[in-house]
């Protein structure tokens, strides 16, 4: 995003403008996902038991590993921004590579998990495993599970492309300590996607594990 500011706007101002713009965008993202959390709360209020028993069938191991992976990727990209703004472009590039790798691992594991869900008949619109008394509620749980994780995965893919793009620009020397704003803004987006997962994890994987 280029910013033609008023004549006297400085580089620093432009960074601030971009950051503010991204935060406004993140607010819209919060509400975008917010609808899903809202739907989750209201539906769970209606089907507490069904959510509990359906929730036990999500893949806790993969979900937990992925949580660790994503939290670590957030650290990587935060450190990348830090390195670049301190002038260490090379270290920054490697940290971005790490971010990309962790993001890819997340998506890989997520796909594996979807595959397991498929083989265990947890996909509500295909031959669904749960029998009538719980069927309706469990269907809605898995419906929300797929919509929520699916929307999250789409965002992660967008995040990956942005990070990849930043890596290329860093490589070509288009980003340096003085013009770190685009990278910073990308990192903000990445962190938000991470925060969304922080909430998805307990709501989808930790329901009634006692």
């Amino acid at each position, binding site marked *: *995003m*280029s*910013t*033609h*500011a*008023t*004549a*006297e*706007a400085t580089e620093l*101002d432009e960074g*601030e*403008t971009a950051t*503010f*713009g991204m935060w*406004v*965008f993140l*607010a*819209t*993202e919060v*509400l*975008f*996902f*917010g*609808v*899903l959390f*809202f*739907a989750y709360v*209201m*539906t769970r209020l*209606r*089907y507490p038991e069904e959510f509990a028993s359906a929730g036990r069938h999500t893949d806790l191991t993969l979900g937990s590993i992925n949580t660790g992976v994503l939290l670590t990727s957030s650290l990587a990209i935060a450190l990348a921004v830090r390195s670049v703004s301190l002038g260490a472009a090379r270290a920054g590039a490697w940290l971005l590579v790490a971010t990309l790798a962790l993001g890819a691992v997340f998506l890989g594991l997520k796909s594996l998990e979807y595959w397991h869900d498929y083989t265990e008949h947890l996909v*509500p*619109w295909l031959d669904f495993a749960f029998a009538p008394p719980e069927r*309706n*509620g469990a*269907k*809605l749980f898995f*419906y*929300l599970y797929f*919509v929520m994780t699916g*929307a999250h995965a789409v965002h992660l893919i967008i995040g990956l492309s942005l990070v990849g793009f930043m890596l290329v620009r860093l490589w070509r020397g288009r980003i340096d300590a003085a013009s770190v704003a685009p990278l910073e803004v990308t990192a903000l987006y990445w962190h938000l996607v991470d925060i969304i997962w922080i909430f998805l994890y307990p709501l989808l994987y930790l329901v009634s594990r006692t």
Partner: protein
Amino acid sequence: MNATSVSSPPAPEGVPTGDARPIEQSYLGAGSSLWSWLTTVDHKRIAILYAVAITAFFFLGGAAATLMRVELVTPRGDLVSAETYNKLFTAHGMIMVWFFLIPSIPTTFGNFLIPLMIGARDLAFPRLNLMSWYVYIAGACITVAALIAGGVDTGWTFYTPFSTMFSSSYVILAIAGVFVVGFSSILTGLNFIVTVHRLRAPGMTWFRLPLFVWAIYATSVILVLATPVLAMTLVLLLVERVLGIGIFDPALGGDPLLFQHLFWFYSHPAVYIMVLPAMGVASEVITCFAHKPVFGYRMMAYAILAIATIGFLVWGHHMFVSGQSVYAGATFSLLSYLVAIPSAIKVFNWTATLYKGSITFEAPMLYALGFVGLFMLGGLTGLFVAALALDVHLTDTYFVVAHFHYIMVGGSVMAYFAAIHYWWPKITGRCYSEGWARFAAVIIFVGFNLTFFPQFLLGAGGMPRRYHEYAPEFQLLNVLSSAGASILAAGYLLPLLYLPWSLRFGARASGNPWDARGLEWQTASPPPVENFETPPVVPERPYDYRPQAAAAEGGA
């Protein structure tokens, strides 16, 4: 324009005035090929791109309305089939709301004027601005394709389970189009917010902003915070429709009221998206032609913010008979009355602005005064439907139809026309025929009232809305309404003739033909590409009008 304003009177001291500059040297001369328009990142040119598209949609939506009104002349459904009628009001509502009225003032006048009014060179993200336009066009094409290919008969509200289980499959496409257009809204709103925060000229403090900027700013906040909710709700609707699983259909274990909550959480704030910019226009126009500072500037600004925020808390007033809990109904009704207070402030302050003014009645002023009166009537009838027990009787009748057309057509569309006439010389550098413009304003006002006032009576008498056929005792009022609609249509067609005519034959406009205040009038008409030759500095409050001086000069 009338004699006084064409040869722009000597401005009071200290008020710099732009000149009439050769059109080739303005932003309009920066390129005339189609390609130069489609790739422009100049906010002024993008505004014109929007204006063209929006005008097309207004007449498309109006054509659907015209067909509906013709059908409703007789109680039997003799012109079109029931199915076609249902598709007509759905197309009418969807087009008018999402493709005309929501983008109308913000994307045209907001785009054109925000940078000019705050003394900036462009919006914060010019390329994003162009992208918003393309996203808007893409969404519009998708929806129009659905409406033409097979039509959608859900009503603009898409209530479940009708939309997910029973309506035709084109609903998928239509919803996808609305989803896409939502992103255009979000990006536009984001751009305005960042621009107003970051790019104000030196000296342009918050309380020196013109009220139009305040209004667009508040509108943008709503766009950014409400639209994502609609977007995700539509996604859920689509998934439910396609996969047959979902949280909205009781047959699947869902709850239809969940959908209604989500829809109105967006759509009630959206009605303020449609009226706040109109209020901003009214404040600019009335001060200019009363030649007086706006009464209670600060209170006007606060009222705008109050409407934008409280407006988010009242959505449940669309659900009083839906099966929502009565306690929730009581809460939402109370909050609806609270949101009416800032609107009341605005109406009274506009009136008070006239006091001891030095008033002239050029076309923009006629439209603006029409706006105030009709908005007030629409708003006051909002108080009827906000009263719980009255709404039980009036909901889903023509009373509601009349309520919102008074605000949206009588209010917002009137203000849109006020804006067109007020800023036309600035945008095009030409003057239109003042006589025709005033004539059209009067025709529209008369036609409008004849169209929609009878609908209040119909609604109070119990005629439900979305009715293709109706009980015979409602016929007389319906005939009156249809007659009014034809006058209204004629009124709307007039500007379509004399405005383009002025582009070729109109007199050249000076930089400040109305002797108005505000940065946009201090640059040339039309403005240069870079807006201001020297970056402006703002030394004073807005609306620095002096009625005594003007009257002494005008009355002499």
